[in-house]
């Protein structure tokens, strides 16, 4: 008997093939759109994170406890180079670099500005930061103890300097002494990150240490590497930290809380749009199911008169909508995966994206993500709301009386 219901439901679906196909098409369209948008969004977030971290922050950092919250110069890592080397060996990763940070007044001939200064290791820095590769004029720092400076492009413009000009640096060392030096600018970088280009100046680590009385200290050990291997890298780095006191390993979420928040905010607003899309599809489905139930009132009357129970009729209608929704979902996922798959290999770009990409530090070609979290949530949401939409016609049908139904046209 169940087979009869299923068979009846199947035949009912195809009684109006055009209507059915249109309904399925609406679902497929919504599914594809959701899959595409989600895939693109996740791909974009991934790139945003990777690119933001690649500029300067790295995947994780070792710092002295409390430095991240209140970056005082005296909160530093002693024997930092040895520790960095230890981490390099344990993680089998070259992308580990030592840095010192300070704040100083920087003067050119015509201007003085307060600037963040980073002392970097020119040998390892290119493996954790893209800045060394983004030199637009001149060259990057040479030796770890050479007396030279590279500087962000906006800062260079604000100070009115070009490679070859000298800058005066005046600040305070780790021990409170006066830190001062004069060094030539050898290169200007353009990272695309506003903060880095506007507020940052780099000099070789050992020079930095001498100027700021840092001995063998540093403020941060930056660890790069692939993000999906983050856990194993972090575990190896923690082993290295065990012999040291009051040092902490910080992940990128802690180092760049703003980035994570921006992504969450963006995702929330996007979901609002998706919800609207899903509700629209649900209404389309409601319309189809309601029509197909109403137009069959007479027919249902006959069935009821013949002794077919309300329950069985309800089951038939549910089977119809489940079948419709399932077909829609399967085709939706298939088409969505095909579309996303195409762009996954070929990249996706639209006009104006270059300008936007520069602003948010994302590349102008996007590669959407193919994963369960991008493929399934959209179609599943459409599937469930579709089933919910078919409840209303069923509830109507349950009130149907055979005599009245038979009199309906």
């Amino acid at each position, binding site marked *: 008997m169940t087979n009869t219901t299923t068979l009846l439901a199947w035949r009912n679906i195809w009684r109006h093939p055009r209507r059915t196909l249109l309904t399925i098409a609406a679902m497929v369209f919504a599914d594809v759109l959701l899959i595409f948008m989600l895939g693109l969004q996740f791909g974009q977030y991934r790139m945003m994170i990777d690119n933001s971290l690649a500029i300067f922050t790295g995947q994780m950092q070792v710092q002295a406890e409390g430095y991240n919250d209140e970056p*005082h110069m*005296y909160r530093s890592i002693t024997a930092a180079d040895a520790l960095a080397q230890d981490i390099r060996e344990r993680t089998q990763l070259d992308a580990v670099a030592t840095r010192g940070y300070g704040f100083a*007044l920087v*003067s050119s001939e015509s201007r*003085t*500005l*307060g600037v963040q200064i980073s002392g970097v290791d020119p040998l390892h820095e290119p493996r954790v930061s893209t800045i060394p590769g983004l030199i637009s004029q001149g060259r990057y720092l040479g030796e770890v103890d050479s007396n030279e400076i590279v500087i962000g492009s906006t800062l260079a413009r604000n100070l009115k300097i070009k490679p070859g000009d000298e800058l*005066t640096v*005046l600040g*305070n*060392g780790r*021990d*409170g*002494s*006066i830190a*001062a*030096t*004069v060094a030539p600018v050898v290169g200007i970088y353009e990272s695309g990150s506003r903060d880095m280009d506007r507020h940052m100046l780099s000099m070789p680590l050992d020079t930095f240490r001498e100027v700021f009385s840092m001995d063998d200290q540093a403020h941060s050990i930056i660890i790069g590497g692939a993000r999906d291997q983050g856990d194993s890298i972090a575990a190896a780095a923690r082993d290295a930290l065990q012999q040291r006191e009051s040092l902490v390993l910080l992940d990128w979420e802690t180092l760049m809380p703003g980035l994570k928040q921006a992504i969450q905010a963006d995702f929330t607003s996007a979901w609002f749009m998706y919800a609207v899309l899903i509700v629209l599809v649900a209404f389309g489905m409601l319309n189809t199911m309601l029509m197909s139930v109403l137009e069959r009132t007479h027919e249902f009357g006959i069935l009821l008169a013949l002794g077919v129970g309300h329950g069985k009729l309800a089951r038939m209608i549910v089977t119809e909508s489940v079948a419709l929704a399932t077909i829609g979902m399967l085709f939706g996922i298939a088409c969505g995966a095909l579309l996303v798959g195409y762009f996954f290999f070929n990249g996706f770009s639209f006009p104006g994206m270059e300008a936007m990409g520069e602003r948010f530090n994302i590349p102008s070609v996007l590669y959407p993500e193919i994963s369960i979290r991008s493929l399934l949530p959209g179609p599943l949401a459409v599937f469930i709301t579709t089933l919910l939409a078919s409840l209303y016609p069923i509830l109507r049908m349950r009130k149907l009386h055979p005599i009245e139904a038979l009199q309906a046209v």
Partner: protein
Amino acid sequence: MKYSAALLLLLFSPMVSAESGTDARDIIRDAINHYRGLTSYSEMTMTIHRPDWERTMSMNGWSSGGKKTLVRVTAPPRDAGNATLVLDDNKVWSFTPKINRVIRIPSSMMSQSWMGSDFSNKDISRTDEIVDKYDHTLVRTEESDGHTVYIIESIPQEEAAIVWGKEISHVRDDYVELEHHFLDQDLETVKILKTLDIQEMGGRMFAVHQRMNMLEKDDEWTEFSIQTLDFDREIPEYLFTLSNLRNPRD
């Protein structure tokens, strides 16, 4: 007639309240004059204390009138020769012998730390700016060791470019300042300058030992201790010039 009486009352009422303001302003002006004299010369040490280190520098200071100040570090050798010149309220230059450069501190950096201490570039100049660019109110008076202490609230005037929301001074009746509280724009206290020792020096009672304390950080402070103080001596004007900052003739 009634109206004009009310108008008269309206006209005079601000003057009545302004009068107490003048009192408070006089006390602040006298305290600054007491502190700076016509001219002054001092020898002092500054100690910066941090959780894991402490550092003491010796320095000489000169001041002239209400606006001009010169401070030159004499020890330790690593820092000796560093000097700061203040002219007017917002013009601060720093000289560093190591690189032989004079740098003008931009006005955006005035609230930054002076030589790594808890004093800002602004604090160190301690000009008479507070007299004219603030509105002063005498909040209350206290008795302490046979002295009357005036507690005065000073709020920067609307157009004055000052980072603080309010300053509170505790000034003794012989114009020695006992405490100075710095409050931010939300009127939360940021740091407090406290006088630890008062002695007769340079012919007047003077706060010879003071400590600046960032609030809620008991292990971070900066102390000033004055060894020699001389007021109203002849100080040549060329002392307060950029060329003298770079090539000292003092």
